[in-house]
């Protein structure tokens, strides 16, 4: 239901694309559409307080709202992207309590009290986060759609590595691994880049890992 509502508002390009997508989806899955029509129009909502980029937001949400949809549709933080909406592409990656997650596969109601950081929260005093600057410098993108997720993922990756977390690329999981290109690639495998800017993404991350621009 929520996805049909944009028809009633001004048809901005974003809204138009969204709505067109929803219609295609509905046509592809007719039983779902028929059931949706039979649902009550107003669902009980939950009070949720989300802390995003240091700001608290009190929201009344349908419990079905994913964290991703709450960020984008309710808080207007459209930097976080919706790609596959099923945890396969990583475009929706945000950082929650210091750990990166797919915001499409978690409910907003499950995040009261959590500290959520999105791409909009990485800059400090108007300056790009070092990882953002490195992506620009290394040309770690082409179309840019996956980039906010890639950057949030990369920022969290460095913290995980600093904490000594191993990866599947770590030969001996009992040791603290060195952040080789193979380690970076393995640790970034949850972020797909269809333009295939991987080589430059890896070099951007390596530069920040090694202490930034020299």
């Amino acid at each position, binding site marked *: 239901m929520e996805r049909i509502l944009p028809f009633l508002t001004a048809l901005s390009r974003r809204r138009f694309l969204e709505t067109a997508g929803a219609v295609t989806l509905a046509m592809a*899955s007719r*039983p*779902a559409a028929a*059931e949706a029509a039979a*649902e*009550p129009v107003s*669902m*009980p909502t*939950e009070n949720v307080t989300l802390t995003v980029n240091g700001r608290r937001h009190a929201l009344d949400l*349908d*419990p*079905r709202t*994913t964290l991703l949809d709450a960020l984008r549709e309710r808080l207007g933080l459209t930097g976080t992207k919706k790609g596959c*909406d*099923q*945890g396969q592409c*990583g475009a929706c*990656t945000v950082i929650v309590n210091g*750990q*990166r*997650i*797919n915001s499409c*596969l*978690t*409910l907003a*109601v*499950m995040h009261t009290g959590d500290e959520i950081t999105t791409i909009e929260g990485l800059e400090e005093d108007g300056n790009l986060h070092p990882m953002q600057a490195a992506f620009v410098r290394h040309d770690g993108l082409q179309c840019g759609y996956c980039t906010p997720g890639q950057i949030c*993922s990369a920022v*969290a*990756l460095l913290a*995980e590595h600093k*904490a*000594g*977390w*191993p*990866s*599947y690329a*770590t030969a*001996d*999981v*009992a040791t603290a691994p060195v952040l080789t290109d193979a380690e970076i*690639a*393995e*640790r970034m*495998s*949850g*972020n797909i880049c269809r333009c295939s800017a991987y080589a430059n993404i890896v070099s951007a991350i390596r530069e920040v890992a090694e202490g930034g621009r020299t």
Partner: protein
Amino acid sequence: MKPFHYERASSVASACASATEPTTKFIAGGTNLLDLMKLQIETPTHLVDIAPLPLAQIEETAEGGLRIGARVTNSVLAADMRVRRRYPVLSQAILAGASTQLRNKATTGGNLLQRTRCAYFYDTTKPCNKRMPGSGCAALDGLNRMNAVIGVSNDCIAAHGSDMAVAMAVLDARVETVAADGATRTIPIDALYRAPGNTPHIETVLAPGEMIQSVLLPPPPPGRQLYRKVRDRASYAFALVSVAAVVAREGDLVSAARVAFGGISYKPWRSAEAEAALVGAPATRASFDAAGRAALKDAHGYGYNDFKIPLARRTLRAVLADATGVI
């Protein structure tokens, strides 16, 4: 997604009591459940969020093992230094699964109870006895490349997707549960899963309202621990075949062996046959091949997944060779 009532659990007892209705589900990480709810494959009317429950610890046990709380995330478990030093096969297996983003949410209990990734289970336009009992199995004559080759039935050939569970099977993990009436029990991981038979929609022996509270790892068995996963791409893909092994060698002989496979059955497939063939046998490629033949003797391909049988044998041989230093 169908509408549901959302509840934060206040205690284990109240959570279990709320969940006795089949339309109620526990939610922990949610990475599998929410995906299935979006597709209306899962349609709970009531979700009980177990995040407030004190089930996120990893503790030493008196017998020298570890007790892992059901809510411990896959990332935290794989990174725990006790696991990395004493149960490296478990760390390796967890790290072989999914992506860091998913492992940061996915939990120990949820990982065990994840549902199959069979393409026909996910495709709601196709028959599936697991999703809709009695509707048939589209995978039998379909594109069944990812499906199981052993222990399954003509009603369902879905494979279990977990890597973590394969390592837990080889470590003799036990699942500790609590039921709605407060009764607790301990289930060997191998006995947690029910063979599909003609009721593939019933996947575990857990009763409605019964919650996994923790997983118990006995002290680590002697031998070298290894996990190897074979898949379509280098990272972030489900296993075609995987092997977890714990193997010890004395002189030229294999003195102890535990073997489990992933990707080939409805559950992590521990192979007593392979283990029996290995213990006391010379550590040679011929012995490893014999173990592989013993492990897969009852396997049956369904067309596109025939390759999994030789692939499982060869992966086992490679792992055993690696573990024993045989070239």
